[in-house]
């Protein structure tokens, strides 16, 4: 490889590693979003009578 190609490789490695890191963070955020949707579904399905206090507490903590 020529020196110029090594320079391009150095900058390319930085780009690839940073993109991989951002992709991992994005995947984790997508998982969190899925879990949040599941929890929301769970609270919607919960019977409304008798658990008003629990619901209020959940909303407050969230």
């Amino acid at each position: 490889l020529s020196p110029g190609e090594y320079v391009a490789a150095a900058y390319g490695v930085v780009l690839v590693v940073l993109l991989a890191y951002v992709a991992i963070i994005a995947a984790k955020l997508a998982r969190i979003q899925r879990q949040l949707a599941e929890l929301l579904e769970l609270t919607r399905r919960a019977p409304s009578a008798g658990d008003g206090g629990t619901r209020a507490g959940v909303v407050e903590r969230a």
Partner: protein
Amino acid sequence: LRSLPAQALLAAALLGLGIFLAFFVAPEADVEGVRQRIFYIHVPIALTSYFCFGLGAWKALQLLWRGDDRYDLESYVAIHQGTIFGTLTLLTGSIWAKTSWGHWWSWGSNQLVLFLVLFLFYCAYFMLRFSLEEGPRRARSSAVYALFGVVLIPVSFLAIRLANDLVHPTVFTREGPQMTATMFVSFCVCWAAVTLLAYVLYRVELLGKRIDADLRELREALS
């Protein structure tokens, strides 16, 4: 949180400007030629790595001093960032070494070996952390370990001045930076860009981990 998108955009713009300056404005070095342009990405990444490890140790000290649990996560995320930038330092440094010396690594260079020791020390931090159960004991043990590692940062940083080899010539001396003004400005822009990028990534990862912890707590409360 509102400032995060603006900071991310600023980091991207600075990085673009820094790369433009490094490739099209900064003059080519006399001896190194085109391969010297790796300097504008390698050195800022290495300095950012030191900064992240230092930040992790500072947060660890605050955890031990104040006993506030939030510093545990902040310390962990900072060290995680330091390890990522440390990996990039080793990768870009090896590429520079290959094109300059003809081989990927030199065990004879104190600077290289000390940085590797620092990097491996903080890699072992994760082994320690994940071998313990979550709780105050893990937080304290991790904090103490992170604080021990901070001693290696000045040693690694100063090794460049103590080493008698020509592998890492001293560029920043008491007389000022040994480079042209254009080179120095390009370097400073790249350094600011990489530091800001690391800070943005630190905040995003921290935010994700905090939301994840809150979700876990919420799930436990609902079950």
